[in-house]
């Protein structure tokens, strides 16, 4: 007892001294992130809180709102357009995940030693990423044109009569996924390339010495070592896909005329529905409820992904 009693103040003093340094360091840390943090709070957090509040209100066309409790949410659950938009968005998101293995394969090909013109390929893949989504959508709108589009002209050359890709309910969503994957592959590819170049060379040398083929090396070394990168990409792309708007907005025909697209029932996304309610029919309270529901959906799906990562992500 006495020993401990005697040694305690010493240890406490020591600990206190040791702790003070990190505390001032933490303060400095907070000071450094304060500008960003403040910006986040004012421009992101506050609007989110406001939107959450507005989702319980009904708005007049020129402002002014009344509290309506859960009305917007009950209406949301019974609205067939919401169900449809969520289904379309989830399908788009799921199909869009194809972009991840594709990006890994292209990254592996571009990562090969001694590949000629690697800069050209990398630029070609990355170009869609730095192009404005609206420009991309306009371009693809023309490529997909049923009568005059390049896609169908190429198909006609091999004797296939192509459909009206973005006006046909059977093809529209897939046509959209192709554009989505095409425009995001460059970004994913760059991240994967960085991931690959961080894998220690010794692993490959050792495997080669043990007689592993390049394909075996790819599956046994590259893929597992890339899994943290793949996890990051999948989180980011799922969130991005769930918020899909600009591509659909431009490709289906902007504004209200989008509804005259025969494939609209397959193309309408959650954010598009939000846009229509908020800015076309002036139903802002309901629009707020729609985005809050989307926020919950994104949170849940991200949580599920974090849970699942234990099963397939290998950290070194």
């Amino acid at each position: 007892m006495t020993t401990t009693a005697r040694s305690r103040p010493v240890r406490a003093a020591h600990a206190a001294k040791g702790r003070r340094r990190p505390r001032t360091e933490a303060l400095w840390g907070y000071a450094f992130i304060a500008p960003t943090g403040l910006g986040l709070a004012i421009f992101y957090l506050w609007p989110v809180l406001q939107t959450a509040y507005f989702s319980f209100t009904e708005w007049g066309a020129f402002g002014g709102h009344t509290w309506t409790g859960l009305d917007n949410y009950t209406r949301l659950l019974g609205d067939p357009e919401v169900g449809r938009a969520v289904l379309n968005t989830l399908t788009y998101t799921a199909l869009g995940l194809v972009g991840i293995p594709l990006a890994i394969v292209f990254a592996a090909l571009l990562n090969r030693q001694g590949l000629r013109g690697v800069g050209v390929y990398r630029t070609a893949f990355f170009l869609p990423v730095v192009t404005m989504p609206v420009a991309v959508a306009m371009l693809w709108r023309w490529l997909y044109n049923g009568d005059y589009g390049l896609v169908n002209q190429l198909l006609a050359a091999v004797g296939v009569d192509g459909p009206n890709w973005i006006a046909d309910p059977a093809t529209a969503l897939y046509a959209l996924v192709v554009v989505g994957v095409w425009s995001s592959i460059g970004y994913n590819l760059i991240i994967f390339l960085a991931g690959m170049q961080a894998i220690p060379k010794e692993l490959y040398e050792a495997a080669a010495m043990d007689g592993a083929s390049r394909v075996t090396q790819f599956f046994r070394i590259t893929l597992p070592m890339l899994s943290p990168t793949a996890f990051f990409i999948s989180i980011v792309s799922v969130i991005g896909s769930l918020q899909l708007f600009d591509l659909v907005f431009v490709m289906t025909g902007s504004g209200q005329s989008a509804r005259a697209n025969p494939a609209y029932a397959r193309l309408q996304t959650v954010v598009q529905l939000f846009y229509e309610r908020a800015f076309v029919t002036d139903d802002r309270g309901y629009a707020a409820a729609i985005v809050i529901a989307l926020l919950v959906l994104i949170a849940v799906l991200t949580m599920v992904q974090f849970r699942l990562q234990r099963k397939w992500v290998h950290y070194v």
Partner: protein
Amino acid sequence: MWKSARGGAALLCAALLASACGGGEQASTGAQAGKVTLSYGVWDATQQAVMQELAAEFTRTHPNIAVNVQLTPWADYWTKLKAAVSGGSAPDVFWMNGPNFQLYASNGVIKPIEEQVDTSVYPKQLVDLYTYEGKLYGLPKDMDTVGVWYNKTLFDAAKVKYPADDWTWADFKKTAAELTDPAKGVYAVGAQLTSFQEYQYNTIYQAGGHVISPDGRKSGYDDPKTIEGLKFWTDLIAAKQSPDLKTMTDTAPLQLFEAGKLAMYWGGSWDVAEFTGNDYTKDKVDVAPLPKGEKQATIIHGVANVMSARTEHPAEAWEFVKFLGSEPAADLLGKKGPTPAYDGTQSDWVAAHPELKLQVFLDAVAYAVPYPVSKNTAAWQEAELTHLTRAWTGEVPIEQAAADLAAGMNDLLAKE
């Protein structure tokens, strides 16, 4: 550094004080001399120059009132205006259209005209369009009606006579059948679904139907005659005399017409600039009246100038609106812009293109029907597209789609 900062602060204070004094001074002299600047919100970039000219002309006769023309492109105009009205910073005078008018009037954000004005100089339908609960809110600026633009080259190639001024639905259908040439990819007309003003509304009233009841409470889409007016178009698609909806989604009828793939295009008087400016159409088009169904009808619409209810200068704003609605202003507009609404000032507009029978659009005013609206027009315009798309694709019969639309529209009207 401290010193200079303090000095700066002192300067700033001084500047603030000075500007506060200056402001007060300006306001007081302003009140004495009546020097006022009005803001004027418009959406059409092609009319910006003539609007500025009108503003200058107004200032010439009213030296105390300057006008600042504020252009907001169409795509953002209504969103921005709504935000500005909500925030109390709407322009003093601004352009209004039919579909939005009742929303603004019923919410009391635009000011009714109190002075007695002679409205007989404007088309009556437009005066009615901008009257809400017995009060007039805006003076019509311009007007437009619809006609059949046609490609003379395609008519000649198919050896079909040009439309007569008194042609009927039967004549139209016969002409359409003769003009359609699948081998050349030429269709008679495009049954467009995205512009009811040029297509569906016209045939609905020609068939003797209606879009909305006169009191704005009930949908007219379950009226068999209204359905007949819609069937006019779905029949053309079924007969392959019009491209199908998928094709028109990919390539808009206007583009098809300007590529020589459509022989006829139902379009407004505002298309004059488009077709006389386009290299392909400029020496190939002319215009005919819409064909007569059970009745003769065309939709008439026009933009009006209205005043914000919260303008700080109501008297000056009214002076400006009155000037914009006057004969000299209409004369100036007719020379450089769209068809003026003021009766008898349209001759310059017609004379500008002697090669086109533009008189057709003016003669149509006699039997024109106002653009159908209610308090929340946008809501049921969305429903029109949602339901009719299914009939346009052939997914459901037009009778079914129209009945669904009537039910949906009645629900929306009940909420207004």
